[in-house]
């Protein structure tokens, strides 16, 4: 009997999701025994043409990490979709846009101007910018086109499953492999994590959610046993799906929302605005003004990982849109 085939790919990514797969440690050998890994750019030598030569849906499981922010990533997402039975958005970037999606607060032109002209180390008086096509003596060199807007994988192709996290924890990765191997993958569309919020998993003592001040993590040394939100530190726990093992809060840092919105919440950032503003105690305009001052960057704080997946998706573009 032929072994099932697995593919992995990294798009607009940092590499951390691939490292997380390596963090399955010796179980990676079990995975390699159970299935043939037919494509994995960071670790194996297969090229795009190998994928193109595969029959459609011959890849049984594709773990796609990273967001989509250029034409090559979009093309490979479509290619892998065509060749795969099951497509998994692996990690916060593929699921929600992740950190790269913070680029949705700006535009390609602004980025280019900053990177190639304004940045203090740039020496570019000729105002040379990268081009999608450059003619040189020997022929032509091309580059993928960079989009204005960063997208989630599901905004480009159909996706069967979502594994959130930055990066996904090893136990969830192994659970997915197990479910796949035993033919017990859940109904299509499932997000493979907890069905509750992070708060449900968190073991810190919770009393009453009422705060009079908001502090940024560096401004106070919090009690390691009490709920961070109750101590005035913005923790995204109430509007974040659980299942991560509460790793950040256990390190005394607040949750930043990398598991995305919990069931029933469409827009994670909006939910956080609602939650944080609700628990803030105010006696009048002065208190409200102080709250606004203390939350220095609401968009960045509440949409840190979820910009591409939010209802607004991006900051308004200057005039019309160039691409996606």
């Amino acid at each position, binding site marked *: 009997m032929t072994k099932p085939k697995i593919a992995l790919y990294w798009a607009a990514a940092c590499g*951390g999701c691939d490292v997380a797969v390596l963090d399955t440690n010796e179980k990676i050998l079990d995975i390699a025994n159970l299935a043939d890994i037919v494509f994995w750019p960071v670790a194996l030598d297969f090229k795009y043409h190998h994928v193109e030569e595969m029959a459609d849906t011959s890849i049984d499981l594709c773990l796609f990490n990273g967001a989509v922010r250029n034409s*090559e990533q979009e093309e490979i997402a479509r290619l892998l979709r065509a060749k795969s039975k099951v497509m998994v958005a692996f990690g916060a970037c593929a699921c929600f846009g992740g950190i790269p999606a913070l680029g949705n607060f700006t535009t390609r032109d602004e980025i280019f101007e900053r990177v190639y002209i304004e940045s203090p180390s740039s020496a570019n008086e000729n105002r*040379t910018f990268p081009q999608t096509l450059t003619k040189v003596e020997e022929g032509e060199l091309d580059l993928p086109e960079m989009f204005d807007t960063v997208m989630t994988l599901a905004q480009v192709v159909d996706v069967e499953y979502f594994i959130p996290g930055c990066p996904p924890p090893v136990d969830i990765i192994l659970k997915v492999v197990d479910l796949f191997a035993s033919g017990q993958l859940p109904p299509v569309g499932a997000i493979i994590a907890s069905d509750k919020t992070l708060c449900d998993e968190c073991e810190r003592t919770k009393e009453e959610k009422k705060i009079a001040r908001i502090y940024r993590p560096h401004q106070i040394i919090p009690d390691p046993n009490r709920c961070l939100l109750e101590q005035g530190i913005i923790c995204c726990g109430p509007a974040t799906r659980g299942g991560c093992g509460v790793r950040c809060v256990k390190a005394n840092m607040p949750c930043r929302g990398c598991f995305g919105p919990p069931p029933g919440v469409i827009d994670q950032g909006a939910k956080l605005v609602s939650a944080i503003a609700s628990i803030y105690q105010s006696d009048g305009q002065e208190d409200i003004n102080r709250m606004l001052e203390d939350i220095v960057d609401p968009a960045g704080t509440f949409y840190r990982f979820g910009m591409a997946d939010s209802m607004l998706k991006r900051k308004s573009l200057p005039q019309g849109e160039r691409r996606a």
Partner: protein
Amino acid sequence: MFYCAHMVHSHIAHFYALAAPDFVLGPTSDPAERNILGVVAKVGLEIGGEVIKHRAYAQDIQNTIGGKATHPVFGLPGGISKPVTEEERKGFEEKARSEVEFAKFSLKLFNDVVLENKDYLALITGDIYTMKSYYMGLVDSQNRINFYDGDVRVVDEDGKEIVRFSPAEYLDYIAEHTEPWSYLKFPFLKKTGWKGFIEGRESGIYRVSPLARLNVADGMATPLAQAEYEKMYQTLGGKPVHATLAFHWARLIELLYAAERLLDLSQDKEITSPEVRTIPTATPDEGVGIVEAPRGTLIHHYQTDNNGIVQKANLIVATCHNYPAMNMSIKKVAQAAIKKGEEVSEGLLNMVEMAFRAYDPCFGCATHTLPGQMPMEVTIYDSQGEVVRRLSQNLPDR
């Protein structure tokens, strides 16, 4: 301590997953086998298990200290968020001891599999993988390698110091050139200026990496690593070494250094101190931080508003510093390896890639735009300028 563990995990992964396959299986072996899984199959499950285990130890240490090993969250203005307990420290010490032994084993493996193999030694010292350049790295006050703190030192192709600067001064010494055919920029030494893709003293091109660090330093700060450092230079004919594939040898020497340092730090009485952060009393408006990332010098430069929120950022990462040299290394291999009348093969593409792999697997951070995959095409023309063969990867169909 966290950072040493990080170096350990990364160097193990880079060497065993990226470099070792070319040497253990052979540069022109079947791509289906020429990977970490093939290495494990060849060296045996026991050794394969040791590789995985020691990388896991390093990740465990980072997980414990940092919350997560990948994307750790424990750093914040004023210090770190959580102290190390005595029980954790004991665990780190035990793991660190094992890491030192494993690093020694890896160097022995490199010796037996690579250095004792005449063909591989010839490959390493051969001209096609050699490039004379300036070298850059972070050193402490005694000019020994330091991953975390110190001044940036640049030496020339004879190993002589030509500049030394503190992080805040980096803009006086480094600038970046742009080409239309790449999203990644091309750093160069301002002292010499951008002269294009040329080798040698007149060029502004410099390299970072484990080998650059060893070239730049006068020695290692730990004894076992120092001995290996001396052995490498003795074997390869003195300092500095210009052999690109020796990046991997230097990488293993650094693995040993990182492991020794990890052990030292885990035994430091102060490492379990509960005082790990202070409350900042002022908000800076600008800062430059330079560390040595696993693959080379990493520069972060931020400008902030009066809330300390970043307004402007400038990053020059290791891959970026190396980018001009990477292009040249690849070109050199391609030019030398394609011989008239001989068939051009997938093995050729791999030999070109080996030059690249010595530097880095990762273009992601370097471009700021995260295209993610390096498109590469080797086009072979005959002497009449006619295309004989085209080998490509990661390019759209023509």
